[in-house]
């Protein structure tokens, strides 16, 4: 009896009447699912290798292909679901940690979808964004507690460095290494065209992208890959990455096979060597150590750039955020438990951390109770899927949102959650030249610009509907939200009322 238990997750359905044996599917599939059987002259599929990324479906010239979820099921069991069973089989066979990509897919509550936005009716007018100015610009950075003017109205207070965004959106940290060169280029160029920022992630920055420095956040993570004075001074903002929503509390691992020449140069590590980021920063074992790193980076850049500190949303996020603000960070970035990743241990991704909606509401409230909210900027990440999520995040108290998964979807990601294999057929999460070149940076740039512009229009419409013409009047304006189907505790944490109240 075979102990190779289980069966393919997906079925490849090929319409033999349509298939012309052109072998496009075979050429497109880096997972090597399809091949031409020389004996029969027909295409066949090894379905066990399929990850359901839709590349073959999208490129089949005769639309002969369909991928279906394999409906072969275990005996129904509410406790031992088919996933639980299959994961046991996998681990029994390999003795390994389960690996996964992208964000937490489990059916936890999505609070964005349980909050509704207000609109003006009669007692105050809505504002038409096609006729009236609508302001979505945001300034990120530390703000003084108050401004002073001389008697002629001249400003006396010196402002700390600020970043101006045209819309309250930025592209999340995704390192060169975890994503391809072309994906990186598209993010950098789109951010520049849009007047927003993208984030290098922890993989350093290739010299060819220094030209986009004014729209770049350069990240400093526990592995310190590619961190040097020129790198720091090239970015518009610096970010210390303490944690990531997809894998709070643990480090990262870029396998050596992804460290080709370009990645090696950007990260300043030998080609082919594994890039391992430790779980903690080994020079930060406490909040006072964080302060030293923040000020080291400020010294290195002569106090000309804001410094952000990014943490994963964990249970004690409010107190941690307060400590970060007091340690001198100019921006606090919080990444919720649905945040994406190139690779994370599945158990961590699916079970560690808390939803960004709750973390954001709690952090904003805590900083207000300590009367320091207005002095720092708050950026949130961890599954912002639409302009409505952005509007809700800002009403809860965020200054701006990071988008990662949404940005990758815009350039062709099909959410197959196997980024860690390095065989991304869409040329995004891969370093294989033949795959990378499938992603056209010009097209990808345009699609990112389109996405953000589309969201911008939608944000304008919703703001105008609320009778608001400047995004800062929405920030922390929780009366603009109502909960639907939430219990009192959830409403209290979110600081909102229930619909109908």
């Amino acid at each position: 009896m075979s102990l190779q238990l289980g069966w393919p997750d997906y079925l490849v359905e090929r319409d033999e009447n349509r298939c012309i044996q052109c072998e496009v599917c075979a050429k497109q599939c880096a997972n090597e699912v399809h091949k031409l059987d020389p004996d029969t002259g027909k295409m066949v599929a090894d379905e066990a290798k399929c990850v359901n990324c839709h590349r073959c479906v999208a490129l089949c010239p005769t639309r002969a292909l369909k991928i279906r979820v394999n409906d072969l099921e275990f005996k129904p069991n509410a406790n031992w679901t088919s996933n639980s069973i299959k994961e046991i089989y996998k681990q029994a066979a390999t003795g390994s940690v389960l690996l996964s990509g992208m964000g937490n897919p489990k059916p936890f509550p999505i609070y964005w979808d349980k909050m509704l936005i207000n609109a003006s009716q009669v007692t105050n007018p809505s504002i038409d964004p096609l006729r009236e100015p609508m302001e979505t610009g945001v300034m990120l950075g530390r703000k003084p507690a108050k401004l002073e003017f001389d008697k002629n109205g001249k400003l006396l207070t010196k402002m700390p460095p600020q970043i101006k965004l045209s819309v309250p959106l930025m592209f999340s940290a995704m390192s060169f290494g975890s994503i391809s060169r072309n994906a990186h280029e598209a993010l950098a160029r789109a951010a520049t065209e849009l007047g927003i920022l993208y984030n290098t992630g922890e993989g350093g920055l290739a010299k060819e992208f220094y030209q986009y420095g004014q729209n770049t956040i350069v990240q400093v993570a526990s592995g310190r890959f590619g961190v040097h004075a020129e790198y720091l001074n090239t970015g518009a903002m610096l970010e210390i990455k303490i944690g990531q929503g997809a894998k709070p509390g643990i480090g990262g691992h870029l396998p050596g096979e992804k460290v080709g020449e370009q990645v090696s140069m950007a990260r300043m590590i030998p080609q082919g060597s594994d890039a391992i980021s430790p779980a903690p920063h080994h020079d930060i074992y406490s909040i006072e150590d964080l302060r030293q790193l923040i000020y080291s980076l400020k010294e290195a850049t002569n106090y000309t750039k804001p410094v952000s500190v990014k943490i994963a949303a964990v249970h004690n996020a409010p107190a941690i955020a307060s400590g970060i603000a007091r340690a001198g960070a100019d921006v606090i970035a919080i990444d919720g438990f649905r945040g994406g990743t190139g690779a994370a241990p599945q158990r961590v991704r699916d079970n560690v951390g808390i939803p960004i909606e709750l973390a954001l509401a709690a952090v904003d409230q805590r900083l207000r109770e300590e009367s320091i909210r207005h002095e720092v900027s708050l950026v949130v990440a961890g599954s912002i899927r639409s302009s409505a999520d952005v509007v809700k995040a800002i009403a809860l108290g965020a200054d701006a949102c990071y988008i990662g998964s949404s940005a990758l979807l815009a350039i062709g990601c099909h959410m197959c959650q196997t980024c860690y294999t390095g065989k991304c057929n869409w040329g995004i999460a891969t370093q294989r030249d033949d795959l990378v070149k499938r992603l056209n940076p010009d097209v990808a740039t345009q699609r990112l610009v389109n996405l953000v512009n589309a969201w911008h229009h939608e944000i304008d419409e919703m703001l105008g509907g609320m009778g608001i013409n400047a995004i800062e009047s929405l920030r922390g304006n929780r009366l603009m939200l109502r909960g639907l189907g939430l219990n009192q505790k959830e409403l209290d944490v979110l600081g909102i009322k229930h619909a109908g109240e």
Partner: protein
Amino acid sequence: MIKEGQVRIPSGCAISGILNRKGKRFSGDTIIKSIELMHDRSNGLGGGFAGYGIYPEFADLYALHLFYDDMGAKANVDEFIEHHFEIEKAEVIPTKKSKEIPTSPLIWRYFVYPRKKRLDKSGLDEQEYMAQFVFKINDGFKGAYVFSSGKNMGAFKGVGFPEDIGRFFKLDTYNAYLWTSHGRFPTNTPGWWGGAHPFTLLNWSVVHNGEISSYDANRRFVEMFGYKCTLMTDTEVITYLFDLLVRKHGMSLKEAVNVVAAPFWREIELLSDEEKQKFEAIRGVYGSALVNGPFSVILGYEGGMLALNDRIKLRSLVAAEKDEMLYVASEEAAIRIVCENPDRIWAPRGGEPIIGLVEDN
């Protein structure tokens, strides 16, 4: 039904303000006439007035005006006031009942100054001491409400049409160099006298027409600085914003206007580098103090008045001048009824303040 403070009640309104820039005082008749003309902008559920210069004989004392539900509430508060202040005089505010205003709470006023020992012990300056005292009563004493707490000024308000409230308080017997008034059209109200406008704190008084859409952003901002928005009204939060910016942050009224009705980014882009830096800083630091959505507001204080519209003028506001008099009102007719031929009458642009100062102040 729940009252202001337990629920947020939007309302439409009429406002009017009349200032003698030479500081000459005139009777409350005039302002009643002006606000009465706009009768249809109110619905009988709230009206009120503020007068400056009305208590010259007690000019250096704080005039506390209070509503009490009953004598029991008064007894508690009396003890609290006594504890913190020297009371020069305490009396019932004279009123005249009418068929329009058949019932009212107990309405008292006290002329007081802080007990020196208490003030020194508190470590606060006199104004902050006073402000905290008002917050404490309004937040902590059931059935009592301080609706005026400035020097040589006073608010008079209640449930009814504003002209009836004015007559109820016999405003024809008071003389002021600045009068402001308010007629209210709430969409839902229990008819609580404390919920009528103007709203006041120390010498500030605010009358306002509009429903600001930035309310909760503004509220949560001022609450970081020790204010407590107990009424949940726009007027309350606007008063605290000006108090914060001018009294606590030391801004001129003009800079405060640059905060609450900040210029658009596209206007800021056109400014000189120095001005640009200034306005960028204002929008960055005080973004949460930007007042958004429709409003026309008249802010009164001992030095004069400021009238202001939202940035895109979603509420009506008209201004006029005649010699030393400055008028502002929701409607032109409300000015012409008391000043038939002004030297100049105009509709100020959105975000452009009308500032009238008393010359000797």
